[in-house]
């Protein structure tokens, strides 16, 4: 039996789709999540102390079910819960898997290294087999089957609640969020200064988009770290990404490869980011971006 960990995160449904291709799956549902149509069987975890997230309690719940394979989404929670299961059982965990195939008693799999800039082909043996699914490795696709949901109450003790969420804080409401914006304007070293971002802000405001920056820019303090697009920052997936003065190091590409289209503005037509773009304008962003803003402000004929 393959157990698939599901929580409120939409990536859980991708993990379910991925797991279903490996065999018969039972969903293990923590909190509020609708798995209807994805799997034939689902267990809803019901426990009076699980009103808040507690990773060791989630891990214990999985271990108690003695599964042969466990699949979880490649999220903060998915990784830390499966790492705990792996540590307790003394077995490996394959993180951020993009492809897997049953090969006798083993799993032949491909997983991401370097945020996906490099792939590792590997063979996973032993029991249980633990893996997390890299975000967007597959699209969530219901199987169109009816789902039988039943409640399940795990046996948990105090030690499983040593680590738990004790309170939540709301984020300050602000401009468009990077990870959900339809348009993202990116700035790199070529922007030149903190003040240089004003023109990018203006363009973003006109398009209802968000402004992001490369790691260079957040390290220099020109933008807060929360604006970073990259392997150690936000992963964006807008309809259009407009990187301005960004060279295109792997660290940055990992963060923006989810963009549907890329329009580059850069002085150097040989910068690596240009080869990854759909369109490019070659030249000084401080001339080009204001010209685009002016053009957008012109009344239509």
């Amino acid at each position, binding site marked *: 039996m393959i157990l698939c960990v599901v929580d409120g995160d939409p990536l859980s449904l991708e993990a379910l789709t991925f797991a279903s291709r490996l065999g018969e799956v039972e969903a293990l549902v923590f909190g509020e999540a609708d798995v209807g149509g994805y799997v034939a069987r689902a267990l809803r975890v019901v426990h009076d102390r699980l009103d808040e997230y507690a990773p060791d309690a989630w891990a214990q719940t999985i271990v108690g079910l003695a599964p042969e394979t466990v699949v979880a989404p490649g999220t903060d929670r998915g*990784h830390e819960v499966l790492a705990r299961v792996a540590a307790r059982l003394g077995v490996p965990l394959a993180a951020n898997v993009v492809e897997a195939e049953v090969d006798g008693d083993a799993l032949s799999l491909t997983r991401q290294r370097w945020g996906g*800039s490099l*792939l*590792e082909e590997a063979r996973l043996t032993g029991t249980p087999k633990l893996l997390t699914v890299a975000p967007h490795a597959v699209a969530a696709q219901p199987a169109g089957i009816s789902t039988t949901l039943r409640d399940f109450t795990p046996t948990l003790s105090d030690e499983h609640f040593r680590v738990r969420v004790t309170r*939540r804080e*709301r984020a300050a409401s602000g401009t468009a969020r990077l990870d959900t914006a339809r348009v993202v304007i990116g700035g790199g070293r070529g922007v030149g200064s903190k003040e240089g971002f004003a023109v990018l802000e203006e363009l973003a405001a006109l398009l209802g988009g968000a402004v992001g920056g490369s*790691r260079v820019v957040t390290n220099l303090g020109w933008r807060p770290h929360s604006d970073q697009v990259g392997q150690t920052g936000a992963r964006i997936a807008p309809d259009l990404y407009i990187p301005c003065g960004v060279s295109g190091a*792997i660290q940055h590409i990992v963060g923006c490869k989810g963009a549907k289209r890329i329009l580059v503005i850069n002085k150097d037509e040989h910068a690596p980011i240009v080869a990854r773009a759909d369109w490019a304008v070659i*030249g000084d962003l401080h001339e*080009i971006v204001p010209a685009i803003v002016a053009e957008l402000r012109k009344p239509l004929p």
Partner: protein
Amino acid sequence: MNVLVCVKRVPETGARITLTPDAQAIDTTLLGFTISPHEECAVEEALRIAGQHRGSTTVLTLGPAAAREQLQNAVAMGIDAAVLLETDGRDWNAEETADAIAEAIRATPEPFDLLLFGNEAADTGDYQVAVRVAHALGLPCVTGIKGIAIDGGRLSARREAAGGWEVFEVPLPAVVTVKEGINLPRYASLPGRLRAKKTPIDQIEPQRRASALETIRLVVPPERASHVEILGRGAEAAPRVVAILRDLGLVAS
């Protein structure tokens, strides 16, 4: 307050990764080495916390002899002591690495109050060494942290969650993995660099064990051929850019 920070030597990759002919490793002939951005922040956080709570700091790595460079860089930033778990240069997987680190920590005469790691290694991206070390030592562990506050024997840690933050509170000693953004790492000072050259590095030879996850080979994902259309040079290209924005439906009419 004794703080340990664990780091990993990784190649500084440019815009494209090249593999060795046997496809088992990255060809590093022309590359420099560094630690991951998360780990740079872990080093800074160790210094910040030890400074605030009058403590000492130790940096530890498992890697080849050349990883002394990364330990010295951390000492140059202000870390007090350094430990190298020296390997023969082959990659150690997450289970082996965690075993060796836990063993080294157990053997330390003065116990640590806080063990800091980066959220994941830049290269292998396994997301598990810290969790395994915590389990082996019986310590609580929180991951993906972007804010730490310590009050007496308790640590409170913030993690980004949908639309805000979730806050964990755990007793010390504890294991915490941090993400870039928790702080802005300092640069090494000149006196720091001089001190780094004189600071002895404790060397330990760790034991290795086998794993049920076997790497077969590495693959650089195929890059699609460039199909970029150059719209023009300078401000003259603005009308063509705006036409594209309108075609994509991104301009409110």
